[in-house]
């Protein structure tokens, strides 16, 4: 850990502690110090993003650290987004015809 923290961009100690807890809680490890530093940067960005969402949210939702806090928005979309559904033309909604399926 000491080696890792020396190699990252200057980050507040508090953030590094929060990131360490995130790693423990979600069982995350990174292959090398460069990757660790990269993920820590993304984590810091995402915490700021969560804070922004918290300020803009109109409901009672709470935003913060999640299992996806070390992923960029693009990575999150690529890993979990159903791109086929997203690419579907809005005018091409399919309506099933129940009667057709009922025929033997």
């Amino acid at each position, binding site marked *: 850990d000491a080696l890792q923290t020396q190699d990252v961009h200057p980050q507040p100690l508090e953030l590094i502690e929060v990131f360490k807890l995130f790693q423990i809680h*979600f069982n995350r490890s990174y292959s090398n110090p460069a990757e660790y530093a990269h993920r820590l940067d993304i984590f810091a960005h*995402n915490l700021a*993003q*969560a804070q922004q*969402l918290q300020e*803009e*949210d*109109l*409901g*009672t*939702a*709470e*935003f*913060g*650290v*999640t*299992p*996806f*806090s070390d*992923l960029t*928005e693009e990575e*999150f*979309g690529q*890993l*979990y*987004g*159903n*791109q*086929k*559904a*997203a690419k*579907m033309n*809005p005018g091409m*909604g*399919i*309506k*099933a015809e*129940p009667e057709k*399926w*009922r025929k033997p």
Partner: protein
Amino acid sequence: VPSTCDWRKAAGIISPIKNQENCKCCWAMAAAGNIEALWSINYWPVEISVQEMLDCARCGDGCEGGFVWDAYVTVLNQSGVASEKDYPFEGQAKLHRCLAKKYKTVAWIQDFIMLPSDEQEIASYLATHGPITVTINMKMLQHYQKGVLKAKPTMCDPQHVDHCVLLVGFGKSSIEEDIRVETVSSRSHRPTPYWIVKNSWGANWGEEGYFRLYRGANTCGITKYPLTARVNQQVEQQVSCP
């Protein structure tokens, strides 16, 4: 339409939270949750094979995304679906390795339908028939922890829907919850209506695998593709949501 509905309160209807891991198969997991719930409401509890829906789908690339209706068509083409226990989820689709014939069928469907894009109608169907699948914009879920998510269309584009989930109920926020989050006096309190949504990112995410989305403003495109299978024979049996 009742004021609240939560199918989780009925024992054995909602199967445990699934985890799609690195496979983009939300469409199959949402469809499986829908069939499992309807089968349990109408007959007996089952947990069905998501892996079969991936391996036996027409295109065979189930971990690269898909549509809920692809899952229903696969179940119809296979004349049913095996159990999760017999044909377990492996986190990756096996091209041209459909093993459906090897296992006993534990559930099947008659057909599937798309409901009107109207939240009141969706709530009515949910309360009287069972959980249904929807496709939403998942952007804000990356940072979601708990509570009712309410977003403007500029923050969560309702036209760009990219994640399939299962609606299992609806309700309204309590005064205690609203007061905890913001400065609301009991006199001016207006409860926030919400949907209860089952996700497929494991029980460690959100509210033990679930989240709540504001109801009544097409938040994140929830009304775009409301789909459900039907498991009954000829006569539509109406049930009552707890």
